[in-house]
Each structure stands twice: as structure tokens, then as C-alpha cells.
């Protein structure tokens, strides 16, 4: 995994190693799928200026992310939630692609 991580730094973005409690492993595929769906949901909602949906979805993501061990997901979701409360589209527009790219780069290590 470490070698893979180094190789990935050339050309594409590096992998993001996240350490997760091994007993959580059965829940992780669904967790990741749901987070990616939520990014799509928020992207659509933002396009429709539906800040209430963005706020609700990011609020849930904030609570779930770090509980599974993905602290950065919670941190980004908290920023999006705050921006949604003040209808600040520019911050959300900036954070959603960052979150999407981060989710794609995650490599989970169970321990």
C-alpha cells in the first residue's frame, strides 16, 4: 500500500490513507457509496439554490464522517453546513468538488 501511495503521487492525486476500526469494515462500502450520493445530491441542490437540502445533507454527513474515522469528511461537511446556513453558494461550490475528489482518493486501512 505504501508503494502504491508513492506511485500515485506522479501524475494523479495521491491516495489518502484513512485508518478505520476493523469492526466497522462491513459498513464501509455503504458508507462510501452514501457519501458520494450525498455529494451529488448537494451539487444538484446547489444548482437549484436549495440551501435547505444542502444544509440537511451536510449536517448528517458531519455527524457520520468522523464517527467512522473519516475526520476530514466531517470537517468539510461542517464548512458546507455553515455556508448553507448563510446561503453562501461560493464556499459550497468550492468545497463540493474538493469533497468529491477526496472521497475518490480515500484508501481505507483497517486496524
Amino acid at each position, binding site marked *: 500500500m505504501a508503494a502504491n501511495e508513492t506511485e500515485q503521487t506522479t501524475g494523479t492525486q495521491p491516495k489518502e490513507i484513512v485508518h478505520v476500526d476493523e469492526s466497522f469494515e462491513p459498513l464501509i462500502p455503504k458508507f462510501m457509496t452514501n457519501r458520494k450520493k450525498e455529494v451529488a445530491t448537494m451539487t444538484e441542490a446547489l444548482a437549484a439554490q436549495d440551501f435547505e437540502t444542502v444544509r440537511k445533507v451536510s*449536517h448528517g454527513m458531519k455527524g457520520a464522517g*468522523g464517527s*467512522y474515522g473519516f475526520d476530514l469528511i466531517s470537517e468539510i461537511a461542517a464548512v458546507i453546513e455553515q455556508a448553507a446556513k448563510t446561503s453562501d453558494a461560493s464556499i459550497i461550490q468550492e468545497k463540493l468538488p474538493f469533497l468529491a475528489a477526496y472521497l475518490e482518493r480515500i484508501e481505507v486501512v483497517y486496524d
Partner: protein
Amino acid sequence: MNNPAPGQPNDQNEPASLARLSNEPDRPTLLLVEDEQDTADLVTMIMEAEGYHVIHAANGRFALGLIESLPPPALVLLDMLLPYISGAALLEHIRQTELSWKDVPVIMLTADNSARDVRECLALGARDYILKPFKRDMLVSRLRRFRPDRADSTMA
């Protein structure tokens, strides 16, 4: 939007939960009221490993139905922000009910570190509160205090 959770019909656990309640008399029951499905799944897994039988309600209305129809559980974990009926309103209902539920320890779950909300819930009779995101060890050790049949249930 959060209710029902994607792919999780609200009523799917209703008959199963009631059936299982009577089938597992040795396991203390925990009512988990949480609308975020992945958080609910995680808490359920952790608390089942702790020996509880977990009943999950994904919104305030479903939770109210359980409160009014089920025997009191050993513990209630109650999210503050819920569809239809808030956690604070459910807590108030539990505390004022004539049913035996009124003495059940209720622990609030919240993703907002709002002093006002926490103060309100403690004033309404919540025994503790847990911030989300949480860490497994923190959740387990804080809730172990409320496990009635454990030798270390008095430990903080």
C-alpha cells in the same frame, strides 16, 4: 430529505423489532432515535456488540409510536434534530408520560455543539449528551455507566 433514509423504508423494522423484543429477554433493550442511516447503523453495531438489543426509529413520529406502545427500554439514545418531532419534544414527552418510561435514562445525540440546546436537554431530564462525530471508545465508556446489569455500571 433525511426521512425516510435512502433505501430504508421507515416501517421495515417495526414488526421485526417487536418480535425480537420478546425473543431476547436477557438482552437489555436500547431505543435509538437517529435519522442519519449510517450513523444509526454504526451505533446499532457498536451497542449490539455491547450486549444491547437495539430498536431503531428513523424519525420523531415513529419514535413516539414506540414510546406509546412498547415497554420501557433500558436506555434511550435520542438525536436532537429529527424529522417531524424534535428530540427535545420526545424527551419532554417521555419525562411527562404516565407510563413507566419516565424513569428511563435518556442520552442525547447532537452534531451541534450548541450550549443552549445541551442546556435545554439536560434541564428537561437528559442524563448525558454525546457529540457527533463520536469515537467508539468514548461512546462505549460513556454509555456503560447506564448498563443496568454490568458490574462496572457505576463507573464514570
